[in-house]
């Protein structure tokens, strides 16, 4: 079993294309101004359909993080221990990601500022973050 690949759809294609082009994009509603991830056809705040893609500045903060000591799939066996973190972008949207500085979370803190670093991983461009400052 290899790493899963995202299911590319008409709705989320700009997100994954953006990463391959070096930008982390999120959606914003023309009607109410709400910004969000993951990609959707409708604004989850006002249900409007007039939405646009914006490139994130790349700044964000750690909301929480975990460190896996158990591999839940065979392809993760040689990756443990590894971290998964929740990052809130400065623009508001939140996503699950990895912090690249330390597999086991050394030096992480809630609220710690982080900066985007897009990494190519087995042919897929993934939005990861490094500690800032």
């Amino acid at each position, binding site marked *: 079993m290899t790493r899963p*690949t995202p299911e590319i759809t008409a709705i989320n294609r700009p997100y994954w294309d953006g990463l391959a082009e070096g930008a982390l994009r999120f959606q914003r509603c023309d009607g109410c101004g709400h910004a969000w991830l993951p990609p959707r056809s409708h604004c989850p705040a006002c249900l409007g359909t007039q939405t646009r893609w914006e490139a994130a500045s790349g700044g964000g903060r750690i909301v929480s993080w975990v460190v896996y000591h158990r591999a839940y799939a065979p392809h993760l066996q040689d990756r443990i221990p590894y971290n998964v973190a929740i990052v809130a972008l400065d623009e508001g949207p939140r996503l699950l990601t990895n912090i690249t500085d330390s597999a086991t979370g050394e030096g992480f803190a*809630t609220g710690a500022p982080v900066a985007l670093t897009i990494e190519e991983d087995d042919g897929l461009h993934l939005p990861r973050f490094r500690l800032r400052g």
Partner: protein
Amino acid sequence: MTTLRGKTAITGVGHTAWGKHPDRDRLSLMTEAAAAAIADAGLEKDQIDAVLVKMANSAPSILWGQKVAEALGLQPTIGLSLDQGGAACTGLATYAALAIEAGMIENALILYADTPRTGSRAAMHRPRGDDSVMGWYSVAAGYAMLHRAYQEAHAAPPEDFGIIAVQARAHGAANPHAHLRLPLSMEEYLSGPLLIEPMRRDDCCLVSDGGAAIVLGATARARNPARAVPVLGLGQAQESWEVHLRPDLLRTRAEASGQMAFDMAGIDRGDISFAQLYDCFTVTVLQTLEDYGLAPRGQAGAKARAEGIGLDGWLPLNTSGGLLSESGTPGLQLIIEAVRQLRGEAVLQLPAPRFGLVSNQGGTMHTHATMILGEPQ
């Protein structure tokens, strides 16, 4: 305004042994539990006119409620399977209470069985959508995010989480029905292996095979009123969003669910004699105690350690061992233990409890339902 307070009662309870059932399937376990609950209620099978099933976590199935009814030889007025995660059994009790009060049905059977111990644990280990590309797998990981957020925000020491596991295991060790009858010391908890940090192995509930059932009927028509436990309060509120999309990881809609149940029951927090709280992971109990207004924010663990959560403690908690020690089954065992306490039939029996509080919740605290039960009249 009408109220459901006390209109319905749990008249029967039943369950299989908890643990491993390598030669049984879900229908077999559910039938055993159903027969026990129907007999406990003093009813004949044909008096059951609603079969309400929580969907099996490890085997989502179309028309599951009908397959269960077929195995029970019933063609009920109302039959359905509900997916609400671990909140579903109390969700189903709410549905049943409304239907009984509306005169649509008389006796509802609410049941669940699954075999994740000897069968597949794939649902618990599953990749979580497209986020799995980041390594985001399992049910436990979301709770580990909540555990970390709680620990960081409140500077909570690991002992605040450990006390929940240590006390549950003490209660389970005394319960002959419990799947795991192995006491846990705080030292053993602290030295246990990390699973998904900051969660340790013993922060996580059991994975158990088994089946359970309850019968709900009109209180006024109970065959044996002295053993009919009235449902005084019901509440629900659904957090719904994935953990990483929630604006606040330190509180959930359990707060609104608990308030609804206390309002319906018309009692105060201090009136509660015991609580059976859904302890899939230790952080869930700390958050639920705080969301319910039973402990100040960030202090549930410290309060539990200082004032006790055993039989003689501040709040006797999970008196049969909960998901951490009695059975990992998602929720009905908590209701059954509350019924036994209020009937005076529990293994670790409290002296004359008056009001029992039960929480059911599912996903990663995505769903929540609350039940308050009273003494038989």
